[in-house]
């Protein structure tokens, strides 16, 4: 470069920073620390016009290096305390990060102390500006209060079994509940992803019997459009409704959006099972759609349960003779790639070796979708009959008998 032999403070620190970044990307923590040692001088310059100043850089990179180095918590704590003094606009963020690290290290009490300290921080207009971080801090304190509540609850339950009742423990427990509930309730009002807070709060509400509130909270979390789309929200709602013994209809509607967002979710099996059994035609149709969609994903290839769902439904349709067009519809977009994806000869061999049930279910589906002459079905049924397993013989007969169904589907 034309200015290679010139050097000034700024260029020198820019170069230093790029060495630090390279080292971080290659996970060379010691080397990153070495260069960071030279970089910290930047704190003595005024970078107020820059987008990200050295104090922020040092905080973020320094934390990363500490996280990956074998240094004592004492050193790290000292470092974080210094970072807190560096930028008042960032104060609460730095506090939060410090607290996370303490939690990761199992130092719950220190984390709690820091949370309380941070909660009591006031700094003119900054307090209002950093309102969101403050709510987070309160939420995490609420979380730790929940944790304490949980501990007390377990103690009580143990004592309860022994027949002892401990009033002091009970009162403490209620105290934690109140503290936790107040803070948790606040944070989940703000649109965001608050899985852990929601779970804890719902747990508290259920324990004290406030099912309405719990339902309300979960509904908000799942259906309020201001909140980001979150599959877990629907999962929590579903699980709650199930616990409450709600009707199948309710449960089905709870899982609908989950299917839209995450067609490969593990709950799709439950979903399909419920839908299959429904009396409504539309729902059964949907069930088929759901199970096909789930099996589009590689993670489900060897899931015997999923295949058995599909197999059951396909079998039922074929036997009844009605709604073969459903299968045809689902199959039309898949017939180009499912054969190679699920029903290759290699997979036939492997499935047979590793999991006979899996191969059984798959063979049934293959036999119907691809006909009795397809590789998969032929291999598995042949192997099954050779091994003199009854159900495979039955399978062979079934598929042969219903070959016209295949013809209708493929035609």
């Amino acid at each position, binding site marked *: 470069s*034309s*200015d*290679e*032999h*010139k*050097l*000034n*403070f*700024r*260029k*020198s620190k820019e*170069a*230093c920073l*790029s*060495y630090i970044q390279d080292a971080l990307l290659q996970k060379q*923590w*010691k*080397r990153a*620390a*070495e*260069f*960071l*040692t*030279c970089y*910290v*001088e930047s*704190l*003595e*310059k*005024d*970078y*107020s*016009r820059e987008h990200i100043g050295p104090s922020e850089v*040092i905080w973020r990179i*320094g934390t990363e*290096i*500490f996280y990956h*180095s074998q*240094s004592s918590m004492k*050193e790290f704590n*000292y*470092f974080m305390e*210094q970072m807190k*003094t*560096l930028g008042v606009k960032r104060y609460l963020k730095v506090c939060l990060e410090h607290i996370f690290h303490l939690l990761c290290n199992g130092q719950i009490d220190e984390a709690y102390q820091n949370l309380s300290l941070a909660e009591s921080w006031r700094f003119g207009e900054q307090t209002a500006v950093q309102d969101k971080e403050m709510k987070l801090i309160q939420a995490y304190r609420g979380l730790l209060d929940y944790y304490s509540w949980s501990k007390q609850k377990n103690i009580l339950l143990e004592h309860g079994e022994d027949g002892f009742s401990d009033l002091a423990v009970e009162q403490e427990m209620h105290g934690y509940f109140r503290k936790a509930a107040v803070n948790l309730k606040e944070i989940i009002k703000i649109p965001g992803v608050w899985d852990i807070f929601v779970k804890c709060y719902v747990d508290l509400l259920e324990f004290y019997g406030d099912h309405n509130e719990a339902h309300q909270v979960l509904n908000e979390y799942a259906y309020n459009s201001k909140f980001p789309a979150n599959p877990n929200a629907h999962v929590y709602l579903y699980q709650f409704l199930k616990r409450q013994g709600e009707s199948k209809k309710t449960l089905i509607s709870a899982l609908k959006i989950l299917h839209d967002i995450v067609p490969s979710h593990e709950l799709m099996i439950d979903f399909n099972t419920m839908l299959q059994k429904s009396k409504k035609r539309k729902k059964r149709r949907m069930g088929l759609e759901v199970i096909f969609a789930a099996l589009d994903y590689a993670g489900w290839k060897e899931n015997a349960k999923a295949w058995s769902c599909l197999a059951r439904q396909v079998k039922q349709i074929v036997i009844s003779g009605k709604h073969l067009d459903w299968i045809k519809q689902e199959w039309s977009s898949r017939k180009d790639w499912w054969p190679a994806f699920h029903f290759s000869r290699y997979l036939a061999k492997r499935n047979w070796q590793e999991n006979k049930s899996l191969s059984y279910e798959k063979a049934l589906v293959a036999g119907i979708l691809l006909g009795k002459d397809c590789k998969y079905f032929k291999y598995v049924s042949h192997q099954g009959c050779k091994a003199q397993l009854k159900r495979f013989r039955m399978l062979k007969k079934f598929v042969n008998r219903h070959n016209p169904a295949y013809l209708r589907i493929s035609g």
Partner: protein
Amino acid sequence: RDFNERCPQCSEVNWGLTDGGRFYCRSCHNVTERSREVVNTDFITNSRVQTISKGSRKQEKNDGGCEWYICEGFQLVLKKQVEALEALGVCPQMKDEILCNFWRCYLQKSKQAYCKRPAGETVKALSVCESSTDVDSDPERPSLLHLLSLSESEGDLQTDCSFVSSVSKVSESTSVCSGSVDGSLYLMKNQKEKLRMTMPMTLSFCYMALLWVREPITLSELLRFVVEGHIPYLNVFQHFPENMRLCGLDLKIFCVESWPVYEEVFNKMHELAAFLDLPRFPDITESCFLHPDMLCMKYLMEANLPDELHNWTCRVVKKTGIGEVDFLTLMPGNKSTRKVKYDVLAAAVIIVVLKLLFLLDDHYEWLLSGFAEERNKNNTEGGPYFEFKKWYEVVKHSLDVEQKKLDEERAKYLWRCEKPLFYSVKNKSKVLKRRQMVVNLQNQFGKLSGSVQRAEKPNPSSFQLRWSEENTDGSCFHGHSLKGILQEKHGLLTAMNPDYWLCTVKLCNEKLCGHLAHYREVEFPQSYHFVLGLFSFLLRIQPSYIHDEVCMIEHKLFNKKLSKKLKYNRVLRK
């Protein structure tokens, strides 16, 4: 409105202003308790106030500091620098006889000392007072910010302006904006005619003195020693005595945040020599280190090239006349002769020689190398023939290693020192706190980086690349022979290579565009680019400057041929 009270001590009305903002009686030096806060600021613009005269200069201020002038500071800097040079082996006369006299001469010429102050000259001692008074009403009194932005900043000091402005807005009371007496004056006055002193200029002084004494240190070496820390330059102010307080605008003057630039130091030196009306410098003759014959020998060794090439460099030097005393010796103020960069010149001579012998067109040199390789395989007796390819591989490898080291050094360079800098007393505590934090963080991360101690400052050495004949791996080419590429014609050894390509057919006007030619890597062969890069690394100077010298030498060498009408193709037959 003048301050008309009578002095309580001597009853005179003869007031001056101390830097602390207090009034003092010029007759009896009684310092009053009255300070400027009490007085209307109109006073400052209307009255003529003189700073404390030199006689009572050493008067101690309340905080234990003394009064000092900028030129005193520079004098200290120069003293430190020349002492370091002495430690490096430079002759002691340089300090007491040469540099001292140069400096005195400079002070005299620039009317900073050793002369009578022109009558009626006023020196306004400025203070910062950006409080409620309306600054705009007085156009004559420049604000602190204005002063800071006036002079060219070295490095990043301008970013500290915002530091300062925030500080001074907060302060209500007056605070001095420089620790020195004339710091603000220094930056403010139009110093164009007087050649104002700067930190890079201290190096110009040093170089000038070195040149006068004809010490074997080139400018590029001097600057390299500065960067490596053997010569005080960065943070030299930490060696100022305790009572010489630096703050405010002094920092702008003495604080360095960039490496010295060859061209700047070089040009300033020539300006200085002319300004001081110096006579012709001592002759640079063939026995001088700075003579191209000598320097070429050194650089050939450092570049790991065969010693035999030295004959060729001498021949080129002779033919072009660049070894003449009059060409090499500095004649200050002579605008017609080209100023000589001894180190760059020697490097350029070597490059021209390489072009003469190897052509360096990305074909011929490899061809020759192939022949040499064949011969070396078959003839194991006698010295090896020089193979360009092997040389290239060995040198490139070392160069890459050293370049990588240098790049890391640049990134790890530490600019600050223990002595803190602050613009005013107001932000002193903030600065000290920051410094403490920096030191703490350095300790913490130093520990995390493992026990990687910062390497001790290497001893200053003249050679950056070293090659030893004792290495059995054949990586030293000094003793290799040029036999394969030479032939005898009419009793004279000439190169087998019959061709030569000029870097440029026409030289630019240096005064207009700053260069004799314009170097762009893509327009030249890779081999040429490589050798330029090699010397660019050794001299720590941009390749384009070496390219300029190469063009200059070529034009001298092929002067006769060029003055005839040339055809459009650039290739000449020698």
